[in-house]
């Protein structure tokens, strides 16, 4: 069930260059159904639209969710000014995530790029809980941009790529996929569209899921701002409510 709630900031820390971890306390944490869902965050009255941010972790006992966000523009920049103890207007949890309950996977590969990494963290945790073997490929621009690598190591084997080679393999996540794809049965990917396109091509013969982004209005399925073309009769999906997680062949990446 989605709700609008003023959540309390428990902790707010910088975890990499321009990248912040935000732990929020509130009832929303009790309603997260699956990894890959997001919350729609109102930064302040100065910013008209909410910002969609993936849920990177959930602690149901403490009733907290963890967000990881990168400063991309005005809104995320203003968000950095919020302090522990402040309250923040959150709508969520929204969308359909990775269908954890229907999955029949033993060997999962998580493929995250940049700020697409966060939802895969909560997914990886949940997979590991189910006894699934988790391998992660995390791509960043440079070493300075990398975050949560240690946390993914707690889940399984981790391969890091950076564009400039300052950490891990030099290049893109797709550089390391050929060696891995035969060893896994399902992949889960989130990142910029260019990366998702490349991943989709590379992994075309492996079952998987991708999580995609689009600018949103309502974030709840009412405004048709966030559609992506689909391969079927209906012709489209709404990312905010039918997604953001889809089968790669379900949608046509823009």
């Amino acid at each position, binding site marked *: *069930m*989605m*709700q*609008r709630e003023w959540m309390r900031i428990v902790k707010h820390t910088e975890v990499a260059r321009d990248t912040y971890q935000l732990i929020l306390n509130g009832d929303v944490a009790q309603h997260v159904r699956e990894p890959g869902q997001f919350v729609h965050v*109102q930064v302040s009255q100065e*910013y*008209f*639209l*909410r910002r969609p941010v993936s849920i990177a972790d959930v602690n149901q006992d403490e009733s907290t969710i963890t967000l990881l966000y990168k400063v991309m523009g005005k*809104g995320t920049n203003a968000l950095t000014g919020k302090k522990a103890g402040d309250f923040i207007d959150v*709508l969520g949890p929204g969308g359909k995530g990775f269908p954890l309950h229907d999955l029949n996977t033993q060997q999962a590969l998580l493929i995250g790029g940049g700020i697409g990494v966060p939802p895969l963290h909560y997914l990886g945790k949940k997979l590991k809980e189910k006894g699934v073997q988790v391998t992660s490929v995390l791509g960043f621009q440079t070493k300075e941009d990398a975050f949560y690598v240690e946390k993914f190591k707690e889940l399984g084997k981790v391969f890091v790529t950076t564009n400039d080679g300052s950490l891990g393999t030099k290049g893109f996540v797709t550089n390391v996929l050929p060696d891995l794809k035969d060893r896994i049965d399902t992949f889960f990917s989130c990142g910029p569209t260019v990366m998702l396109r490349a991943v989709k091509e590379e992994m075309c013969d492996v079952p998987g899921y991708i999580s995609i982004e*689009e*600018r*949103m*209005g*309502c*974030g*709840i*399925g*009412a*405004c*048709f*701002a*966030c*559609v*992506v*073309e689909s391969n079927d009769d209906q*012709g*489209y999906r709404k990312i905010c*409510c039918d997604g953001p997680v889809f089968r790669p062949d379900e949608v046509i990446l*823009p």
Partner: protein
Amino acid sequence: MNTRVELPGLNLKNPVMPASGCFGFGREFAQFYDLSHLGAVIMKAATGGKRFGNVTPRVAETSSGMLNAIGLQNPGVEGIIAKEIPFLETYPTPIIANVAGSTVEEYVSVAEKLSETSVSAFELNISCPNVKEGGVQFGTDPFLAENVVREVKDVSDVPVYVKLSPNVADIVSMAEACAKAGADGLSMINTLTGMRIDPKTRRPIIANKTGGLSGPAIKPVAIRMIYQVYEAVDLPIIGMGGIETVDDIIEYLLAGASAVAIGSANFKNPLVCKELIDQLPEGLKKYGFESVNDAIGGAHDETYSSSISRS
């Protein structure tokens, strides 16, 4: 506090309704509150056939507002009649159908089909800036507007509220043309055409390049237009543009609106319509109004002089 308003085809228990395109067909909002609270519901635009709308991105943020270029995506009038109206009919709330099209024939055919349903009124969308084929011209040319309104009135007894575009030099002559053609009311305003360019990509943010500007940014334009039309044309007005608070609603009523619609504010707060409906009686009382009717057109009443003074 009496918040009832009687308008052609619309017996409203309160004057607050969600604006077209900002509320889908109500389903998503029904998880947040009971839609029975609403004065009415204005549905997302209906066109003759299914429309897939524009390429994304379709929205962009602006100062105190947003741009959208959805492009009238909708399942088509038949789909709406089959799947959406039945859902809304489960509530005792009047349904207003937003009727759109690229040609007069399309408007007429959509209106004809919707006339067979339980909708209480049409909002004739002659002002959507995001449809290329003709929508804009209908909304900026009094002769075209008059014609389409007349044709729709000819085929249907459902009361017609014409939704005016603010992208005109002379809103009064647009309103007069609609009145002449037999419109039962006006709905004001649709969005102002705008654009944003991203310095990073050096391109318009919205794929369609231009989009419609909504939100508090446009409220002063809406209030001005409603004020002018109220003085010139004897038709009830559903006012909209940037409403976020009860004070905003009262400003619209004073300008001359008989009811109001709330659009993009639903994105900030999905509960906004219900919350404002709950707060309205208190808000009216604070300023000395005895009912919603008491406030309508109040800014034109030269005999009223405020008893509330400073200090």
